[in-house]
């Protein structure tokens, strides 16, 4: 599907990394996240991404995009995670633009151009207070009314929702047994109540309550009342894989800075890097990075090639990545010793980013449960290695 060659991907990767290395990193990320500014991320950076064409990376040509696949987006997210970029990239590009691309009417698709131009930030509100990671539990109701819908319900905390220009919100149409639709909800719609908070890694988000919020007829994505549960599942799977790529970047960085730290500090008259136990710990961190990289790559390829079991590949990638993230985040701090506990060292910020990545859109154990539910227990039922 993707027309990008290895060489083109390499060039992309180089330019992402060059940009973020020059413009981002823990200090900048923390400054943005803790600024008095209501966003907690960089508008300037967002407009840079647009100028550099990165917001259109996976969008259709008609929207000014370059029609890349999730792999190209993954390379972008990995670089963003590596330098702790704070902007809601996955939310806007994978979930937001992804929903519109997949489901939007031609009219609705016009918004993609605005996304590519950096004029439209998109939030995605699906999880609810009682859903947990379960993607089929929707109790928010979109009541059809004259000229549109009236939205009532409560959506759980989601990163990026606080600053989005439009929110894509799932709701059952009509009543509690109705089909699940996705609605384009301008953030300035009346009767919406935002509870804004930072997540554990400092990125902001919001929980949102809708109390008879009135939407126009064109708010329903695709303009028909088909049930979108499966589409949402796929979108969130793609979001999951995007978060894995983000985590991969953060793990590579955490391993690098830990290695550097051990190379510079001494204890008992020797460089920390000379202690065999610490060497082997770093080796394990490296191996986890490698494993995450290749398994994420395999899942991205499966998605972009339209493999029928791409979802399983994503779930496996999430299990592996989340476990790697826990190990690398934890050991990153451990190997820094007391210094690792300080707010001033970057490693803690990577730890928190990885904690967030572990949880987003379902953690390792939840995904393992999903895989277990699909596991073929009959003899000759092996599936993990493909054909």
């Amino acid at each position: 599907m993707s027309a990008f060659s290895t060489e083109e991907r390499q060039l992309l990767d180089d330019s992402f990394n060059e940009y973020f290395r020059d413009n981002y990193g823990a200090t900048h990320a923390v400054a943005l996240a803790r600024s008095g500014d209501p966003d907690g991320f960089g508008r300037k950076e967002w407009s840079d991404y647009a100028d550099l064409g990165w917001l259109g990376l996976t969008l259709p040509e008609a929207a000014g995009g370059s029609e890349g696949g999730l792999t190209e987006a993954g390379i972008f997210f990995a670089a963003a995670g590596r330098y702790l970029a704070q902007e809601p990239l996955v939310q806007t590009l994978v979930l937001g633009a992804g929903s519109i691309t997949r489901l939007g009417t031609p009219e609705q698709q016009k918004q993609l151009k605005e996304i590519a131009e950096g004029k439209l930030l998109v939030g995605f509100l699906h999880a609810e207070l009682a859903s947990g990671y379960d993607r089929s539990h929707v109790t928010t109701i979109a009541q059809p009314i004259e000229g549109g819908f009236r939205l009532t319900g409560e959506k759980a905390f989601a990163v990026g929702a606080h600053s989005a220009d439009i929110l894509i919100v799932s709701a059952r149409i009509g009543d509690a047994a109705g089909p699940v639709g996705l609605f384009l909800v301008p953030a300035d719609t009346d009767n919406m109540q935002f509870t804004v908070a930072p997540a554990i890694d400092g990125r902001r988000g919001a929980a949102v309550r809708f109390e008879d919020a009135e939407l126009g007829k064109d708010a329903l994505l695709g303009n028909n009342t088909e049930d979108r549960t499966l589409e949402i599942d796929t979108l969130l799977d793609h979001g999951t894989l995007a978060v894995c790529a983000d985590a991969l970047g953060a793990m590579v960085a955490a391993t690098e800075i830990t290695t550097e730290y051990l190379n510079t500090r001494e204890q008992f008259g020797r460089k920390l890097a000379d202690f065999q136990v610490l060497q082997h710990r770093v080796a394990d961190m490296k191996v986890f990075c490698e494993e995450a990289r290749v398994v994420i790559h395999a899942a991205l390829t499966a998605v972009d090639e339209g493999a029928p079991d791409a979802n399983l590949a994503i779930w496996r990638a999430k299990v592996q990545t989340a476990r790697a993230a826990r190990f690398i985040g934890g050991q990153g701090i451990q190997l820094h010793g007391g210094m690792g506990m300080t707010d001033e060292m970057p490693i803690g910020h990577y730890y928190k980013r990885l904690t967030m990545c572990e949880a987003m859109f379902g953690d390792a154990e939840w995904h393992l449960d999903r895989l277990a539910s699909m596991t073929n227990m009959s003899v000759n039922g092996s599936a993990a290695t493909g054909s």
Partner: protein
Amino acid sequence: MFFNSSAHNPSLDEFREEVRAFCRKEISGDFGRKLELGQHLEKPEYDAWLKALAGRGWLAGNWPKEYGGLGWEPEQSAIFNDETARAGAPWLIPFGVTMVGPVIYTFGSEEQKKRFLPDIVANNLWWCQGYSEPGSGSDLASLRTAAVKGTDADGEHYIVNGQKTWTTLGHWGDWIFCLVRTDPDVKKQKGISFLLIDMKTPGVTVRKINTIDMGHHLNEVFFDNVRVPAENLVGEENKGWDYAKFLLGHERAGAAGVGKFTRYMDQLRAVLAITNEGGKPLSESPYFRRRIADLEVSIATLAALSEDQRTAFHAAGSPSLIGAGALKLRASELQQEILQTMTEVLGRHGLAYQTDALMAGWNGELIGPKESAGILYEQLIRRAATIYGGSSEIQRTIIAKSAFAG
């Protein structure tokens, strides 16, 4: 030998009940609410709690009677630690009563005992620990803060220069006990002395360290030509390393009540009960059910380790090195594991971390269970559990040394 005899001592049941009743009474109202939410306590709140304990004689309950203690047996100490932790009591600030106090009553002068011990027993002063230095973490003996002896019009004294770090709650400190280098020319362990320093002395500066939970618990303490009267030296000059090791043993003997783990499991069950997945409480999830069973195996093991260590200490008069190391290792690992499990639950609520909610009186809109901020704060700050008090790596080295020695 593999198994000791041990017997349940029913006479202590009454004491256990007494502690429970005390906790029920003291840990209530706004104070109880703060503790339940895991909010940060202010100094007056710690002081009130410690004063209440001191009022019962329990603060220094395991001290010898001659120094104002109640001469508790190890079992009584264990019950006290266990029950207060289980009730969610505030941290029993150890710097005075568990650390410097025993050093003073064991190695200090009569003068020092009279001057310092009553204030510790009554919680009149806030003590801090001055051990670690930048560059001397696991390798504590490499410390470089220098104390040079001299004499002036006011008498013999030391002039102290250097820096301590990781000083917990040092910003509330009245006094600090420090390991200082009094002889730079001998083997590193041999030139260290144990000095008590009034933090109001000119030249002492405290600077805060922000930690990854975004709170302020730790500090750096700088000493710039600080004049310390020679009478504040504990024991003999250059014997400080011995006192530090004694203190470590003493600390270990009372270590790791499992009450805290019971408390954690209560919290875990609480957040499982009020967190839903697909509309059903997570407490019905087979994964979490098995996870709890698994954690309870580890807690039971830890409880048995702790009990065994107490018995061994009682029998031999000193804790077993392997047992002490095992206890520190496993308690810190398990603490992190339970907190990770709670974080897994809170992942369902999006992991919002409302640090404002850690402040008393905040009445903003909460996201997720009311305990969320407290749990996430704890999960972050307890990453240090495997680092402080001898890192896991140091513990394994100590255990291995003992194993290879046979």
